[in-house]
């Protein structure tokens, strides 16, 4: 029992929390941006898988790490464009289109991976991101290790949260995006094109999701293997609801979630005689419980999942 509490005072736990949270932060921001514009993006799981594979592959073939991330983001944007075409241009079912792209993107990622790495060989590894120690600040006791000795993409994720909060809540662009998710007809009346706004939001959101995926193979691990995204995309979709579609809350949701994840990993070594599967189940069970807890006060964007066609009501 004492040991279980001692883990909490260990800076390495909290440092791990931010690291584990990074792919979720990117993913949840991406999903949130799409949904604020009125489109549910269930392609997220596949886009994260593709991002993880492409990011790794680019670096494996000789690109530097940041270029790998950029290429991953581009692959996400391309898949986002496909989702936008199906759901916005053709107004097809957002559920089915998203799931279809998830199946397509993951199978394409596995196919391309298998073209490069044949069955039976060990997954080849790359030189991943190393922690950047920010001068002076990283020397601070406890918080130095937690906040100022992280890998580059983790800082980028935190900056992305701040940008998202600012853009969504403080700029005309953010207002247009939010209005598109609430009432696209009003946007049209303002002389803006809700269709273009939705497409752009999906493309940018999907690029963010792919960045989250690429963190897994370029920072958290150093190689790619099938099934590695492990439902993180679905957890992001749950986190968006948990956060009532607010980027700030979504950030804290991702942190809270990653805290439980990092804690259960360490608890596994302390608490014996409990099957490890129960610990692994915890994140998914927690997500469902979180959904139930917030369901009463969830404020869903009014036009979420409502297709928009010009001149049709």
């Amino acid at each position, binding site marked *: 029992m004492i040991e279980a509490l001692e883990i909490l005072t260990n800076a390495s736990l909290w440092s791990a929390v931010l690291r584990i949270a990074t792919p979720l932060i990117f993913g949840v921001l991406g999903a949130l941006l799409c949904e604020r514009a009125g489109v549910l993006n269930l392609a997220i799981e596949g886009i994260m898988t593709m991002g993880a594979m492409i990011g790794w592959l680019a670096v494996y073939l000789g690109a530097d790490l940041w270029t790998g991330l950029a290429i991953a983001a581009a692959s996400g944007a391309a898949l986002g464009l496909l989702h936008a075409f199906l759901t916005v241009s053709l107004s097809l079912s957002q559920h089915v289109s998203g799931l279809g792209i998830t199946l*397509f993107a993951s199978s394409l990622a596995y196919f391309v991976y298998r073209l490069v790495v044949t069955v039976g060989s060990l997954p080849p590894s790359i030189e991943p991101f190393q922690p950047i120690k920010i001068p002076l600040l990283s020397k601070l006791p406890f918080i130095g290790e937690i906040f100022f000795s992280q890998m580059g993409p983790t800082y980028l994720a935190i900056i992305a949260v701040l940008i998202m909060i600012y853009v969504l809540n403080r700029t005309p662009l953010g207002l247009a995006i939010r209005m598109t998710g609430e009432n696209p007809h009003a946007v049209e009346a303002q002389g803006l094109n809700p269709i273009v706004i939705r497409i752009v939001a999906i493309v940018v959101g999907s690029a963010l999701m792919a960045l989250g995926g690429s963190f897994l193979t370029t920072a958290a691990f150093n190689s790619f293997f099938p099934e590695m995204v492990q439902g993180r995309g679905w957890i992001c979709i749950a986190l968006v609801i948990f956060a009532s579609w607010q980027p700030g809350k979504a950030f804290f949701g991702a942190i809270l979630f990653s805290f439980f994840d990092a804690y259960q990993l360490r608890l596994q070594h302390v608490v014996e005689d409990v099957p490890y599967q129960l610990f692994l189940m915890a994140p998914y069970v927690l997500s469902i419980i979180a*959904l139930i807890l917030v369901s009463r006060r969830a404020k869903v964007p009014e036009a979420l999942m409502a297709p928009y066609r010009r001149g049709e009501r």
Partner: protein
Amino acid sequence: MRLERRTHTSTKLVLTAPVVAIFVSLSISGILIILAGVNPFLAYLEILKGAFGSKLAITETLTRACPLILTGLAASVAFKARLWNIGGEGQFYIGALVAAAIGNNLLIGIPILLAMVLVMISSMIAGAILLAGPAFLRLRFGIDEVVTTLLLNFIIILFVGLMIEGPLKDPFAFGWPQSVPVDRSLRFSDLIPSSRLHNGFLIAVFAALIIWTIITKTSFGLKARATGLSPKAAAFSGISLTKTIMIVALISGALAGLAGAIEVMGVTGYVTTTLSPGFGYAGIVVAMLAALHPGGVIISAVFIASIFIGADAMSRATGVPSFIADVIMSLSLLAMLIAIFFTNYRIKK
């Protein structure tokens, strides 16, 4: 590009949709096969041979199609009422696990046919309960069932892992994590001698017939379809949405659970965490390719099964990664979505 709604959609047009979708999917996948350095026509010929080239190949394809028919039916029933059951995978696994648990030694002394029915009913109940949860959460709290059913898939597979390494572990499996086996007497006999194709296939086809009857010939089927077409209008005409969606959920979950039971009783005899190569997710594609029609589900399940069985053989012969089967399947789904769209809309001249 401007689009207008068709005033009339002919049956011929609806029937061509899956054909066009599959053609488009095979064309795009062909490019990937070229990238793998293989002639796509040769590859598709190998797939065809691998899936239908011999008696063994055909029986393997139908064996693979059996669970897909049931998970496909599960998805089509649910989607018809716009209940987005993406939890077929979890429901399949819980059905399989319950079949192994009940069929191992609990039913000794009961007439075999009755015992087999009891095993299948238990699995159906397990699958139904698993989907009843998310359906309840949606109806009571408005929680999107897509997210909950997806998350439950992960929970259930971990639960299966826990059970087959714990209480349901087979002590005679030399330490391999697999469940206790279903009693020999409760296994399906072969439908075609010296093949893996078992009598469970007939049950799957029969299930499609029953579902077709329920959907088209009963008042409940009408209510379910009305709920899917327009929930508001359905509610206005006095249909209880809660009751209808709940019953749809029970039927859909039961079908996926039955798929798990039949796979265990017909093919493997026991459960592992790799029992399903994504039967639940593939069921969604099967349902969509069939435009949610129960009869069509049988055909599209055989098609999807043939792609997977054929791709394995093709991969061994040519070296093209067998993941091409997953690519073909997912592209067919996306192409089918677009094809269905153009059965309802046309490009304005």
